[in-house]
Each structure stands twice: as structure tokens, then as C-alpha cells.
């Protein structure tokens, strides 16, 4: 079987100790929580940390606290399965519960955490390959190489943001808490991401994402739809997160955020703006969906053809909005159940 490279495992019990451990080992260290993404990547030598700082024993990073009125604080170490079935989250932030429940497979959701999924490495089918495979093709700039194999003339890496929860967090206007040697800071979820396949996080390497902070529910409606080949296992090759607040029948605020079509989640601002002040009629939804497809610019580096992923953006945005509007939605069984 594929073997892990050798590493030292450090198991802090507090965030403070974890920060200290990160500082002590510097660039040699990486954080690990559920390990569902990191360990396979290490087996393929995408990462070769000498030290892993395990967050599994940090109790203060687990759990969901708060209320619909004041908002919720979700510890980054909360597992995806716990989040997906948490009654308050299911009720007040259904898009988030749905996204958490659609990550990978049941076993991996039992191990994987919300923090891990928010920070999950960008993906590309020239990059998520074994060392021998990458060596045979000549490596790419994301690891060990110089060029981008998807867009050979490109000065940047086009690996794909593949988090299910990131676009939802962005669409909800959620924030994340980062704790580092200089203390703690809270930034909007959208500020966590950068449009670069390599430096895809604005988080400093010595910072730990300790919590996701949800705003007050406040009549917010949300939904998430995921395109992938199969009903389980697969990363998204298109994710659509929508979040809407209503004044009666009229849209007061709307955010549509696309996942897995760029190196970071991408907000469809024109489409969102087009909904504000209107009722969620089928016509308004179709117009918004049409506009939302604009920012979707997938490349040929995931499953499915990229023209297909582009075309599906409109369909999925329309369906997510229909769900929010309480209109009937067609789609796969898994999404209907989620």
C-alpha cells in the first residue's frame, strides 16, 4: 500500500499549546484534525511535514454554542457529521447542514471537521496524484514543479477550491476566528480565501482556525446544491450556496456563492443584486441564475467536462433558489433528502 512519510506527532490539549507547537516547529509543521484529506495527500507526497500538530485533543475547539438570535459559534474541531445533524443548524442554517452532510462519505464525515473542510487543500487532477505519477508528467507548480499543467502559459496555479462548506459560510456572511502568536483575530469567511491555487488561504501558516462564527439567523434562508458524479465520496465539481433574507415577500438581501469553479469560492454579485427588492418568482429566479453563470469559469482539471460544469451553474443556482422560495425542485434524491 502507499505509505506515509515519517513525521513526529505533537498532541496539544489547548489552543495555546497548539499555537506554541506551531511556532516552535515553524515551516516544518502542519496542523491535522480529522486527517481525511491530509493523510492521503501525505501518502502522495503532496505534503511532507516533519511535524504534525494534532488538534484532536483540543477540547475547546469542539462543539456548537449560541442561539438563533445571537448567532452560533462552531468549534473548528466539530465533526462534519455532528454539524450535519445538529438540530439548530439544520433548522436555522439548512445550507450549512446540507453542505456538511454532503462532504465525502459517512465514515469520513465522522472523522473530518468543519475547520478541516474550510481549509481543505485545493484540488486538481494533475496534482492529486502519487509522487511517481507527478514525476512522470514532470510535476506542476503547486508541488515540486514550475508550470501549471492545466493552463501551461499561466503564471499562477488553477487548482480548485473543493470545500463544500466554504461557499456556504461565505454566503451566510459568517466569520472565522484565527488564533496565532500575536493573538486572535476574526475575519469574514470571504476574507479567508485568495484566488490562487497554491496560496489559497489568507490565514498565516502559524495561525489556527479555531471557530466558525455564524451571524444571527434572523429569518435567513439558505440552501446548498452540489454537483458530483456519485452520491457519495466525491468532492464537489460545482457547489452552489445561496442565502437570502426576506422582507415579507420581497428579497432584502441575497448572496449566491459558487464553489469548485475557481481557486476560491466565487460570489455571483450581479445575480445576487438582481434579486434584491424582487419577489422570488420563477422568472426572477431564472434571471438570477442566468446572471450567476457568468463568474463560473471552470477549467479542465476536475471530474466532468468543464463546459458541462459551466452549464450546470445556471441550473443549480435556479434549483437552490427554488428551494429557498419554497418552489418544487427537481434533482437527485440525495439532494432532496439532505
Amino acid at each position, binding site marked *: *500500500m502507499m505509505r506515509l512519510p515519517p513525521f513526529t506527532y505533537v498532541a496539544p490539549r489547548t489552543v495555546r499549546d497548539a499555537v506554541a507547537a506551531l511556532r516552535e516547529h515553524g515551516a516544518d509543521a502542519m496542523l491535522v484534525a480529522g486527517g481525511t484529506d491530509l493523510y492521503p495527500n501525505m501518502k502522495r507526497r503532496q505534503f511532507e511535514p516533519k511535524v504534525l500538530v494534532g488538534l484532536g485533543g483540543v477540547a475547546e475547539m469542539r462543539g456548537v454554542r449560541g442561539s438563533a438570535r445571537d448567532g452560533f459559534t462552531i468549534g473548528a474541531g466539530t465533526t462534519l457529521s455532528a454539524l450535519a445533524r445538529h438540530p439548530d443548524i439544520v433548522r436555522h442554517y439548512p445550507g450549512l447542514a446540507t453542505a456538511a452532510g454532503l462532504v465525502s462519505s459517512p465514515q469520513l464525515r465522522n472523522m473530518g471537521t468543519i475547520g478541516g473542510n474550510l481549509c481543505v487543500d485545493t484540488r486538481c487532477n494533475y496534482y*492529486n496524484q502519487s509522487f511517481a505519477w507527478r514525476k512522470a508528467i514532470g510535476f506542476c507548480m503547486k508541488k515540486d514543479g514550475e508550470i501549471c499543467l492545466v493552463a501551461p502559459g499561466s503564471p499562477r496555479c488553477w487548482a480548485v477550491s473543493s470545500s463544500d462548506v466554504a461557499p456556504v459560510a461565505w454566503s451566510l456572511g459568517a466569520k472565522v476566528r484565527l488564533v496565532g502568536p500575536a493573538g486572535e483575530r476574526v475575519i469574514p469567511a470571504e476574507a479567508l480565501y485568495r484566488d490562487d491555487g497554491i496560496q489559497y488561504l489568507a490565514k498565516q501558516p502559524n495561525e489556527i482556525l479555531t471557530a466558525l462564527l455564524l451571524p444571527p439567523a434572523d429569518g435567513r434562508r439558505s440552501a446548498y446544491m452540489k454537483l458530483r458524479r456519485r452520491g457519495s465520496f466525491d468532492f464537489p465539481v460545482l457547489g452552489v450556496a445561496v442565502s437570502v433574507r426576506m422582507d415579507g415577500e420581497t428579497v432584502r438581501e441575497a448572496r449566491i456563492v459558487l464553489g469548485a469553479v475557481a481557486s476560491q469560492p466565487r460570489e455571483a454579485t450581479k445575480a445576487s443584486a438582481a434579486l434584491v427588492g424582487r419577489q422570488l418568482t*420563477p422568472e426572477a429566479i431564472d434571471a438570477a441564475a442566468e446572471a450567476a453563470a457568468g463568474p463560473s469559469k471552470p477549467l479542465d482539471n476536475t471530474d466532468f467536462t468543464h463546459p458541462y460544469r459551466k452549464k450546470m451553474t445556471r441550473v443549480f443556482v435556479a434549483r437552490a433558489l427554488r428551494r429557498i422560495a419554497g418552489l418544487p425542485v427537481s434533482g437527485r434524491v440525495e439532494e432532496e433528502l439532505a
Partner: protein
Amino acid sequence: MTKDRFTIVGRPLPKIDAWGKVTGDTKYADDLVLPRMAYGKLLRSAHAHARITAIDTTRARALAGVYGVITGADLPRVKFGILPVSQDEEALCVDKVRMVGDAIAAVAAVDEETAERACELIDVTYEPLPSLMSMEDALAHPEVRIHEYGDGPNVHKNVSLQFGDVDAALAASHLVREDVFYFEGNTHLPMEQHAAVAQWAADGRLTLWSSTQTPHYVHRLLTKILDVPGAHVRVIATPVGGGFGGKLDPFAHEIAACQLSKLTGRPVKIALTREEVFYVHRGRHPVLMWIKTGFTNDGDITGCHLKTWLDGGAYGSYGVASTFYTGVINPVTYKIPVYKFEGARVFTNKPPCGPKRGHGTPQPRFALECQLDKAAEQLGLDPADMRRRIVADPFTKTANHLTVTTIGLGECIDKVVEASQWRAKRPAFAKGVVVGDRGLGERRRKGIGIACSAYMTGAGTAIYWNNMPHSGVVLRADRSGGVAILCGATDIGQGSDSILAYLPAEVLGIEPKDVHVHPADTSLTPVDLGSYSSRVTLMCGMAAIQAATRLRRAIAEAVAKKLEISVDRLAFRDRKVGDPDDWEKAVPFAQAVELGEAMHGVLAFPGAYAPPKRAGKYKGGGVGPSPCYSYSACVVELTVDEETAEIHLDDVWIAHDIGRALNPLLVEGQVEGSIYMGIGEALMEAQVFRHDLHKAPSLLDYKSPTTLETPPIHTILVETDDPEGPFGAKEAGQGPLLPVIPAIANAIYNAVGVRVDEIPITPDKVLKGLDLKRQGKSARIGPERIPLFKFKEPLVVESAFGQPLDAIAVRPFADAQS
């Protein structure tokens, strides 16, 4: 025996190895750990096509923890291959690599990590050659030769057979259709990755434990490849965690483990990674097909002409057989009076293709069954009725001289048509049934499709020519009342070990648990050729029945003497032997064995089986004959989302002519597994390449369906009691895969009017078809061209269509009374 007299046969018993599998007790090859064992790893080529100019292992050998490093120079310079006509492989390439993944060197070390690091320290100097990654490239560049042998530059095999005057038949038809289809390659994806442990002992004898479907062929080939006396080599097939044809060749890791063991004096284990399994491959050939068929207005076939081009990959493997199989099995299903088949297998710089479940036949089956659907539409016929009308006649010969015995296909069609409510649904769906339409733009449409198939129950000829049994057993009765059966058959999950317990238990009136099955050990067990071509239940089953009958006769003689009654009076049941009319005096089976042993000495009896000699008397007639053929009919109901073109399977009905279900539970398991695998091939699986490399060599990225994609499968078993099978049984492991693929394609057409003549049928292809349809264009997605390729002048043979089977069939090794 009539069916109601069976006690074991027909009962839904658990497999005998079920407890071990469920509790984790089963020891697979990778579970074996021997004292002082070293761990091996192969260095594989990073180039698709290159000359090797130098290999330097100095740095690897210097690494602490490395016990030994070998290259091709350390092995005898012999080329090998599973088929005598395709000896084109080396365990470790010496002069040239032909694909990314070709093995070049091997390391044995204290652990896998060290072995892997050592592989990275081996310096190979390559001189790259142009890579030929498609059939088009390979045919367009005869100046670049992947191999020096074959039927032309980069052409491994070129065959052409004609049975009767096809041109004349087509000219006299009311309708002639010409269609082109493509079937993408895909791989077996067994859960267990290949693994082997070799121990070249101090006494100079070699034992290899391996996850193989064919210990006998591995045994034969090891003696050649390693230049050791076969008498000093023992091959043990460990329980196989899925084979599907992927473990039917001798492999580099097996050979390297043996040689490394010899070099280091330690047992050596090599277990492949999932990525390596994709390179080892031997899976489904990508096949381009052109099929021209003539029909009468009533739907009868007048004649058929099929051309196939197989993308073989870098080596021969079973490819010559695969090439024939794309042509020879279709005529077994329907009345095809005259037939012409031309096939070519082309070498490319990709992992070699070979036998995958259905070996060479799912591709032409897809072509024929989709074409029949198109013809039925043009002729205004119901596709089920049309197929029902043209089902071949039992106990006749086909145009290409295959002898067919029982045929339950008509009944299979009737059963699935009825169970699926085909007659009501098909016309309704064709009009456009929108699912859950609440007037809000929902566009999900229902569709239903049918297809049929046939498959052989065991190849009629062995891989190497010989007159010996294809399967043999030795059965020994113990004084405890237990019975041991030794047989070379390999249980790859299909249940052959269980069959070897059920059949003697049936004959001897004991329970399967009383039978101790010792399979697949070349130094203990009589040869069985291997788990391929759906041959094992029939062939080892016939051998087991023969041996059990001989044992029964010996025991009966002794019991009859003791009870002072005639042998004919005796019954064997409930672990007793006695006169049914005087059952109180019946002798317990253990005591009966003691009586038998006292009379005859050791009670050990052989059983042997070889298929009836019925091969057509023309060159190439050896591929296709089988003792009997199974038949399947399948109906698929599905829903297509017109906006996303996602395909949701709602239900699959399959009726399978099993001859007789020795254990209906096992048969249903085989049928369901086949359907599941067929669904994957139909909808998503694809072994495809980019920049000379496999695009997705991992379980995550190579898309294969999960249980969520698997619909309810309604299995209907049809029993025809075939005279050639053990208690009438035919195969179940491969045939049921075949019809589900075209049935899905036909159902999609029924749903949305789009013809995707190309496997896999993915949402983007269907969406493209829907766009074409909206534009008023022909809504067909599929290949547009066929290669400019010159097939051989055909070997012209008279059609044997409709002739009765030969009055006298030669059945080697059969007892006179059985």
C-alpha cells in the same frame, strides 16, 4: 435425478467461506507474514515508450535496510505471455519500456518504506520514443513499432471469418442498417489489490502464495520464466478478494518476489498499490465497432457483418482471444443465418487490456442490441417482440459452427416483459412521461429499455493445446464421516469452494459442512485451469460429481453387503446409507465409510472433466465453443433529468437462464454483482489517458458507482436443465453483465430521444444530444468514422446455421453410466 429429489441443490445456503469473510478470519495474500520476511517494491517506468540505455542500482543497494535489488539482467532472458502466440512480456523490462507503469527493477528491504525509498534511488536513463496513445496514432505511425511481431506494424492480430454469403443476404433484405459504436475501456477494480509472497527455501524449492485466478498457468509459466524445474515449484492461490479477469496473467510482482527471495534467502512479499493495479490492468478493451445487419419486414435477421477494432495496450495478454470474442458470441443469441466478422487488435503505449468479466463480448453486445432497437423502431416493431421472434433454436448450430444446447431466452424475455410492465410503460414513456411535474419547469423523463445476451459456460479449449482434463478433483472419505475434496479451482468470490462442497454432499447424502474443501494448491490439487470463461462451476462441478459418484458406488457396495440387500436399493441421505423402505437399519455415513474402507482400502477417488469436442473445423474455430450457453434478458427503467442530463436508474429486471440454480442465493449474488458492474461501465467508468498517463488511477477519481447509484435489481431465474451442466447448471458470473449496458442505452432513448452510441453514457453526452434535438438535428452522439484499415482476406466457411448438433459428441473422461 429430478428437481424435487435434490436435498442440497436448489437450497439458498450461505457460502462455506461466508463466516471467515464476515469475521475477518480469511487470510488474503497481504495478510501472510512469514519469519524474516522482506518487503518488496517495483520501480515502474515514467515513460510511455522509451529505450532503456542504463540502469544504475548502486545508490539503492547502498541504502540501509535494503536486502536486494534486481533488474531484468538478473532474470533469465525469456519473454513470456499467457497465450502461447503472444510471448511478448518481460517481468522487468531490459531494453525498452512500452507504457507508464512497466516494471524495470525490484527491491527487497526491511519494510515497504525503505523499499520505496530505494526504488527512488535507482537511476534509469531513458531514450524516449514517440508514444502511440490511440489506435489512430498506432495505425498512422507504422514507422514506430511497439512490438516487432504481429499481423502488421502495431497490429497484434488481424482476423477475418465469413460464414455464408453475407452480401447476397443483405442485398435481399427489406432493411439494412449500418451503425458505428464505441465502447471505452474500463478496469476490473477488485477490492483486493494484487499481492504475492514468495519463499525460495534453503532446499531449493519455491513456494508462491498469490492472489491469482489461475495458479496452474502461473505454475507453468514460472518454470519457464525462472528456469526452474516445475516439480520444485508450488503455487498456492490465496483467497482472492475479487478477480473479474484482472488476476489471470503471470505478473511482474510475482516473478520479482520469487527472484528476490532467491537472492536474499528470505520470504518476500510484494503487495501492489491501487495505482499499480490500474497499470497491471488487463481490463476491458476499448473497441470501435461497425455493424451492418439486414432485416426482413417481420424483424428477422437476414445476415450480419461486424468489424471490430480493439485498442490492446502495450502487450498481448489474452488479446488474441479477446479479438475473437468480439466476433464469435453474438450469433449464439439470435437466428443469424449468415455472418461475417473482421477484427483487429492494435498495440498502443497503454496498460495492456485483457479479459474482464464478459471478455470481449459486452462491446459487440452493446452494438448489436442498440442496432436491434433502432431497426425495431424503423420496422414499427416492439423491440421485445422482435427479439422474442428471432431467438435462436435450441440444440442447433450457429452460422459460425458453435453448438448450442438449451436456450431459455424466450422465457427470459417473457418474464422481464411481464415483471416490468413493459407493454404499458414503453409506449407511455415514449410519449414523454414527466416525473413529479407540478407545472414549474421540472423536466425529468422516464424511459424503459430492453436487451438480451448470451455467454459461454466455460471455454471449450485450454490456453495451451492438450488432451488432459480441464478440471480434476480427488475426493477422499474419512472414517469420521467427513469428506475431503482437493481441486485446483480458485474461489474468487464466485463461490467455487462452496460448489465443491455442495455437489459431493448432494451425491453422498451428507451436509456441505462435512465436506472439507482444499482448493488451488499446485502440489496437492489436481489441475483446474482457472477461474475464467465462467468455466469453474460446470467443469469442477462435473469432476466433483464424477468422483462423488465413484465414492458412493464403493461405499454402497460395502453397505449392501453388510445389510444383505442389492446395491440398487440403497439411498444416501441425512448422513445415512440404507434402504428407504427399511430406514431404521440405515448405516450412519461414518460407519458406511469404515465398511467401504475395510472392503476397498483407502477411499480416494478422482474425477475429471473436459468439454465435449465440438470446435468448428476451421482456423479460429477453437474460440467460442462451450459445453452450453447461458442467456439473459434485461429491462431497465430510468429517469433522465433534461436540465442536467443526469441519469437515475429506477429499477432493473433481469431474467437469467441458469440451467439449474445449484444455489439460488449465489446465483442471485452473481447476477446482482454483474448488473452493478455493468451499470458502472454503462454510465461512468473509463480507463482514459492524458499526456501518456492514466488520468485517474485511484479509487476516488476513477468513477465507479456506489450503492447509491445501484437501483433495486429484480432477479428472475429460469431453469432449462441443460444436459451438459452439473445437475443441469449453466453459468451466472458473466452473462448477466452483458444486457444491462445496451438496455440502459435503449431506455435513455425511450426517455429523451437521444441515442448515445458510445459507452460510457455520461450526462455531458446526453446533454449534447438534447441540445442537438432542440436544434432539430439528429440527436445521436457517437463515433462518426472508422479507420482506413485493411482486414485480411476472409476465411470463407459454409454457414452451419440451423444444423442439428452432432449426433455423437466426444466427452473425454466421462463414465459410461453418467
